[in-house]
């Protein structure tokens, strides 16, 4: 069973590994409006080893928190701000707000960062 499975998985893994070499730093705009991420619509997907820069804009002051990687980060309205992530650990990590301008406190994930293995 194990060999059967390995035989199926290994070729796919090798092809993926060959493709995923020397990726440049990626940049992605993330826009918050009305306390919700309106862009991008889905989870942010990157590959392990990527360096990704998230450029945040918000219509309200917000303190963001990327769980797992444990990065805390402030965004002021009208001032785009960059969060740079060295995506070393794989997984699906929520980004939540730890406080809005007026002290409102959200616990829903605003958006997820998904780091896939390379």
């Amino acid at each position, binding site marked *: 069973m194990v060999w059967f*499975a390995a035989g199926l998985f290994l070729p796919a893994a090798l092809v993926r590994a060959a493709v995923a070499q020397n990726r440049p730093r990626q940049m992605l705009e993330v826009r918050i409006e009305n306390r919700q991420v309106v862009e991008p619509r889905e989870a942010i997907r990157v590959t392990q080893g990527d360096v990704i820069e998230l450029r945040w804009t918000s219509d309200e002051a917000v303190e963001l928190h990327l769980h797992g990687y444990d990065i805390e980060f402030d965004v002021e309205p009208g001032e785009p701000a960059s969060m740079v992530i060295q995506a070393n650990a794989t997984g*699906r990590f929520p980004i939540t707000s730890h406080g809005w301008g007026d002290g409102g406190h959200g*616990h829903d994930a605003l958006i997820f960062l998904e780091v896939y293995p390379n």
Partner: protein
Amino acid sequence: MKSTRIKADLRDFLQPAAAGTAAALTIFLGAQPTQAHAFGPRYDLPLPLNLYLVGAGAAVALSFVIMALFFRALPAPSDELRIDLLQFRAVRALLHPLAIGGFQAISVALFVLVVTAGLFGSQDTVRNIAPTFVWIIWWVGLAYIAALAGNPWPIVNPWSVVFAGLERLVRLFGARNRAGFGLAYPSWLGAWPAIVLFGLFAWFELIAETGKVPRTLATAIMIYSGLTWFAMAVFGHDVWLARGEAFSLAFGVFGRFAPIGGPVRDSADGQPRHWYLRPYASALVVDRPCRLSMTAFVLVMLSTVTFDGFKETPLWGALLRSVALEPAFAPLLHKLHDLGFDFQIVLETVMLALFPVLFFAVYLGFCRLTKWAAGSRRPVAEIAGLFVFCLVPIAIAYHLAHYLSYLLIAGQFIIPLASDPFGIGWDLFGTLGYAIDIRVIGARFVWYTAVVAIGVGHVFAVGVGHFVALRVFETTKTALRSQYPFLVLMVAYTMVSLWILSQPIVGSPSLSSLRAPSGTVSLAPFEFRESCFEMTTQDTLRYDFQSDQPVDFNIHYHDGLTVRFPVQLNRVTAHADEFVADVDQLYCLMWTNQSIKRTSLTYRIIGP
């Protein structure tokens, strides 16, 4: 420094939102969205589609390979395949009364530590050892050990150890009666007490938000302990362990898969005589049907494991949403809200109760098919009691896959907690500063383990079913024919397990909370929204709103089990006012669309 930051991080996962000021907390639906089961973060990536398909395909293909290869008159594994471990001196030393006494003392000490820490230690979930030890190390960790190595619970079960110790003490003082009141256990009661207790435990683990609060957890443990000891005194120690102590039964079911069986003790002096190493899953092959209540217990266990995964899928969120927004349920929903019930908890509780019923119905249906396929005269209940253990390997495999990264990542909390179990600043072993490493296990490893485990579990399931059939049906031919329906059931169960793993873990949806202090939303008929604020006495809040269709508006707060409504307006389309809090409370402004048409609602809240 790093560790305190990590802890701050986790605290946000674990603590109720009420800690914040002006918490946008919803009371109806969705209090803790990123919450997995009992507590702790889970960062699992969903199983990719190609692996899901490979796993599902392999389950089908392997089933046929096994049928082709083994579905002949193969003898069931016999007792000759076991090795008695007691022939080795080192193993005998492990079962020496002194050694066993040592394990039991450690177990009871840990039990006392957990309860004491829960009651008197820090009430911060991640700074108190109780939640991490109980939910991750004991419940998840011990299940792994019981299933993959051998079930240590009969030896270390602290309730059993303490009661047996007390019994010995009582006998020392001359009482002759071994089993307290010595009441005969009514045989119709079967394992039903364990089912009820296990159901309550599952509810506490998967649905109640309070399982992560150390004091609540310790209180629950004390209540369960009192009940267990009382029942042991009434019905006898051994009887209750076999019928009512939910964890003995649960770990026992997992332990049937394990290669090490519990020590076989001499009935006269209680000394271990044999301790067998046996092929995996061989104890799942039974030749006598288990009782209906035991069959039900196994199915309840399996269904709660599946429910745990299912309740984090987007499908469950969508289901919850559609039920919550279904106009037919609106009056019930409001009634529940007025009675102070959290609607989401009610819905999840109903689902948790329905899952075993569903499992039982489907399983009995397949047992009926099996009876028909084999042309057997055995009653369906008997067939159900014979084959129920076949499903256990699939459940174990799913359990393994579902909890692997959780155990390895969230389980690391035990390292700093060991140094400071009460959360009062001790550093006994110098590990207080340990920071959780989220890279100990990669997604790829988790995926492959999951698919391989589920594939292997499936093979074991098919194998166990096959051997049981050979033992209990009259001819080989009928035995083989009996297995086709079960094969379908097992493939389906394996696919459902894989499907859950292929779903992204999402928290429960916050259906009704308004995040923004102002905005325009669209409300379906009977849909409601609310926005909540922590206010202290004399805090003032200004608000205004308008809608196309009449809405009910109120400002309410929960006072224990009753809901109080300082402001209540029925069927209005516009309103503007000021609200002054008269007590310190979490106040919620709530709008409900009372018309049968969708309405837009434009609202603005200023302050507090």
